[in-house]
């Protein structure tokens, strides 16, 4: 285990060291101490390493992550794992706004709650939230899966495209052009896999699926009120 203490090291030195790890590095386990809410910790990683941040992080921790696993033992600030391409990010606490925004791939697990706009413009990422999520989550979500074991706030899935949204609890309101969908066997299979990987004991059958009604995909004057 390699340890970097941000009380003694700069952010630049930390990220440079982590980014320098190659595909075949044998230094695969890293620990970061004293994050104290610093921004951009462990962003842009591109190697199959596992980084554990002991504490809470500021904005954009694990942003644009590729291949790496990043664990945050505290809570995460806005934009955690934004634009993630692959790999895995696990947050023991809560996540602030825009968690997993525009993510293209990989798995983001939030063991607490996620604030507003979780999964905004997601493009293929899988997100599993053990708790609740805030308003406008999955806004303009393009693809991927958002799994919410608790409740969802207002305007879930507003203007979403082909992302799949699974909620076990209540949805305060659906956004424009988002509707309840049929749960088919393939969706149960997706949920089963994601819940297992995220360490949740929720049962797939308890979830409801939501997605795009596709009425806004092309301009239509009869839908003008929805724009």
């Amino acid at each position, binding site marked *: 285990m390699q340890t970097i203490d941000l009380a003694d090291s700069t*952010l*630049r030195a930390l*990220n*440079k060291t982590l*980014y320098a790890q190659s595909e075949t590095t044998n230094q695969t386990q890293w620990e970061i101490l004293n994050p104290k809410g610093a*921004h*951009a910790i462990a*962003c*842009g990683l*591109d190697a199959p390493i596992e980084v554990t941040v002991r504490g809470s992080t*500021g*904005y*954009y921790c694990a*942003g*644009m992550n*590729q291949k790496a696993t990043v664990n945050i033992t505290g809570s995460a600030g*806005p*934009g955690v794992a*934004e*634009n993630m*391409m692959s790999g895995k990010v696990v947050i023991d606490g809560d996540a602030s*706004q*825009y968690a997993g*925004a*525009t993510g*293209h791939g990989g798995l983001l697990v939030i063991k607490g709650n996620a604030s507003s*706009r979780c999964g*905004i*413009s997601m*493009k*293929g990422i899988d997100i599993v939230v053990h708790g609740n999520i805030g308003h406008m989550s999955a*806004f*303009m979500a*393009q*693809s991927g899966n958002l799994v919410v074991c608790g409740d969802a706030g207002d305007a879930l899935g507003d203007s979403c*495209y*082909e992302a799949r949204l699974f909620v076990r609890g209540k949805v305060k309101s659906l956004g424009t052009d988002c509707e309840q969908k049929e749960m088919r066997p393939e969706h149960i299979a997706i949920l089963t896999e994601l819940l297992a990987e995220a360490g949740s004991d929720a049962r797939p059958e308890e979830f409801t699926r939501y997605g795009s009604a596709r009425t806004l*995909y*092309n*301009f239509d*004057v009869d839908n*003008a009120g929805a724009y």
Partner: protein
Amino acid sequence: MNRQTPKGIPHTTPRQSATFTQDVNSDIRRAAATGIYDIRGGGAKRKLPSFDDLLFMGASISRYPLEGYREKCETSVTIGARHAEKPIELDIPITIAGMSFGALSGPAKEALGRGASAAGTSTTTGDGGMTPEERGHSSKLVYQYLPSRYGMNPNDLRKADAIEIVVGQGAKPGGGGMLLGQKISDRVAEMRNLPKGIDQRSACRHPDWTGPDDLEIKILELREITGWKVPIYVKVAGARPYYDVTLAIKAGADAIVLDGMQGGTAATQDVFIEHVGQPTLAIIRPAVQALQDLGMHRKVQLILSGGIRSGADVAKAMALGADAVAIGTAALIALGDNDPKWEAEYNALGTTAGAYDDWHEGLDPAGITTQDPDLMARFDPIEGGRRLRNYLKVMTLEAQTIARACGKNHLHNLEPEDLVALTMEAAAMARVPLAGTDWYPGKPGTTY
């Protein structure tokens, strides 16, 4: 029934309304027939105060000119040395503005890269990600970081020579992009991760930050991901240039791209293009003022865009304080957009060469603003690149001609004192005197 005017009563000439003009009436009829606002490409078409309203005074007894062709007039510019390890070094201060693959064909993007590289300048991606054609043919490529984040990935980010965070665009300050279904081909759909054939509307705000304090942190993240190597530009529309430039500098930008309302777009509501934003002439001096007030003029470079067409426009922009300019629509025209040789086809589309702006429909006879394979095949990227290089060279020679006439051995040495204005509006906006006077309209404390 006799509808003739009774004999002997003078005939009244039919009078068109100045309010309900033929253009306005056709807009009303179109709206009534379709139920949707008019969408088009390009920038503001209305008559606006512009660089045409400014003149250089040239040399005289009190100003000593440089000898054309013999005494050197430099044109190079360095962009982004504030924080970046590798600032962009350009031979000429005319760059190619961001235009997306999707809005433009792959060969058109390739031609932009070829032409820009041959002229020693940069080109810019757009709202659709980075294509191999463009990266491969651009010696210096600026990668736009847009609200949609279509195609955004760290690998392409690290291939870029600079990053341009797009906050706004002159044609639509406060609006997001559009790409209608006709142009969402298989390749475009795949790059953008969208269903094929939908009418795609990009977000108008970034999904993971709001406000200047967040922008500062976003810039930090992008610098960390790219190792602090490349410059980070911030592009803003000409909305509130003094404050936007101030805040972008505060957030850590290495360069500011400022886009006036004549700046083009691939597709936006006509009402947006014509009624939101400010003319390019009106936005440059407040932006320069912001840079000067913070002691950052010439340290954070200002790249001005929006209706730049000629070396005269380049020289005027630089005299007013810009470090460089960017061209979009003019570059497309150089490639062959709106060329009269396609007049018959423009007529078939209900328009004429020079007026064609339905770029969103994907039917461009010139094969530039389309994803249609047959139309794209009409466009030769090698020839297009050559034409763009020629055009950029001519603009540069024109700007040098003016600078030498003003006694300047670098385009950056042009200054507001070299200019006069033909109209009071232009004088007030450019903060130069009305021609033949020492009156600066609008300048506090001055009267004539």
